[in-house]
């Protein structure tokens, strides 16, 4: 069964095509990786799928429903969650409140019930808090629930973002470079966490630079270069693909040139 289908997805900015006619078919369940050199369009593709950026062309279908025209909040309500390449927490809120915000689309007590603190509201909030604690336990932050989110360390912040995204049990979770900036031990436990998430029934699409991490985790790999999809298939095959090697080699050679050229 296909969970996410992307057809001809394109995003143009003045003078460049960040995402160029990308096709993608993600089966339900499993971990899928999106890789590519810096500026290849990975984050833009995530922004397009989650609805934060409007496509110049193309279609996005989630679970059989065309979501291309849906705003981002409606997509979140429909079971699409994400994290960000640079951590974006609500810093003044507590850790628990951050996760509760991730549950927002699942809460529906009407205004009179809220104002009068009726049983319906109390029940809903109690359930929400319980679910939020579960999500925090999943990422190992249950002890920190009452602290300000801004007080968390970098690695904890990354995990809180995942808890916030997971609170509503999404069908598809987009993780934008979740391992970036983590130490080796944290990276290992992130891998364990992602396997747990997938076992619970959420499909994961992640952007990652660490090829060892990707090889051990992902079932399929999609490679972007200059906005275009240049490879899609099992990770082992990606390593041997000429175009993929050229893209990464090209990027590395270019980086070496940039480093060697005088300022």
């Amino acid at each position, binding site marked *: 069964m296909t969970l996410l289908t992307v057809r001809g997805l394109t995003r143009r900015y003045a003078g460049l095509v960040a995402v160029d006619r990308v096709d993608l078919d993600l089966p339900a369940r499993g971990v899928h990786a999106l890789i590519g050199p810096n500026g290849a369009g990975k984050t833009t593709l995530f922004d397009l799928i989650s609805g934060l950026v409007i496509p110049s062309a193309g279609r996005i279908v989630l679970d059989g429903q065309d979501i291309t025209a849906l705003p981002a*909040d409606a997509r979140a309500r429909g079971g699409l969650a994400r994290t960000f390449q640079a951590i974006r927490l609500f810093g003044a809120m507590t850790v628990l409140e951050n996760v*509760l*915000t991730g549950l927002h689309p699942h809460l529906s*007590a009407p205004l009179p019930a*809220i104002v009068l*603190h009726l049983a319906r509201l109390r029940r809903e*909030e109690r359930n929400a808090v319980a679910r939020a604690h579960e999500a925090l336990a999943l990422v190992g932050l249950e002890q920190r629930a009452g602290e300000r989110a801004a007080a968390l360390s970098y690695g904890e912040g990354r995990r809180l973002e995942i808890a916030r995204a997971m609170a509503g049990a999404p069908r598809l979770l987009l993780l934008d470079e979740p391992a970036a900036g983590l130490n080796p031990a944290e990276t290992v436990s992130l891998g364990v966490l992602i396997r747990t998430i997938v076992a619970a029934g959420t499909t994961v699409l992640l952007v990652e630079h660490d090829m060892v991490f990707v090889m051990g985790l992902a079932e399929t790999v999609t490679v972007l270069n200059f906005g275009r999809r240049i490879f899609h298939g099992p990770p082992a095959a990606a390593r041997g693909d000429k175009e993929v090697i050229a893209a990464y080699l090209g990027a590395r050679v270019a980086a070496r040139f940039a480093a060697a050229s005088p300022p």
Partner: protein
Amino acid sequence: MPPWLSDLLWTYQNVLVALGVNGLLALSMYVVLAAGQLSLGQAAFMGLGAYASALLSLRLHWPFWLVLPLSPVVPVGFALLVGGPTLRLSGIYLAIATIGLGEVLRAVYLNVDALGGALGLSGIPEAAPLWLIYLVLAASLFVLWQVGRSRIGRAMEAMRGDARTALAMGVNVRRYRLATLAASAALAGLAGALSAHATDFIGPSDYGFETAVSILSFALLGGVASPFAPVLGAAVLTLLPEALRGFADLRLVLNGLVIVLAVLFLPRGILPWRMRRSAA
């Protein structure tokens, strides 16, 4: 009521009215700021509530218990009219559009004879007793407190911190922007109706830019960490000039100084204590 208390109330009647009305106006400002918007239309919304309610009382002789609950209708209508089209634009457009609304309305009050023209409207029945003003203030505080610790309060704080991320979390940011602007206009409309019926006179220049800025300063001084913060800010800025009555010339200067110092040194206001946003 003991005689000393009624003496006190009589002596300070104007200050006590201003304290309650400004508290409501501070809450009106709070509702939009807490959702990360800048509207400068609070004075205009107040004026719409004041004029609409005064006309209902003066021309149609409706009783105040009917006029007061209806006073939000006109300001909310204008809020949706002005707020709706600016939603898709960046935040600054709402501020500009609401300033424009205030100036346009002032010209309308000034030039339409049926609205009293430059003389304003006088002889408004003094139907709003002090206790009613404070009842409305207390009820508004209660409602905003309950809402603040619910999913709505979390969504508003999320929007204020980072609207894009709030959107990705499933918060319908546009709807919340419009709803908070409407709630803000409703509160200002109530404040306008109450003050018009507590002082018997309203004029076209009561609801201009200067009033808009002083309402903004209530919330700037108090902060928006809880609904009590802006009300405290309003109380300080209402009572300070009274305490400085002897230095009439210095009042405006000191008032301005308080605002500048608060913004520079207390960016989270004088009451930064943050309310918990969980109602479980």
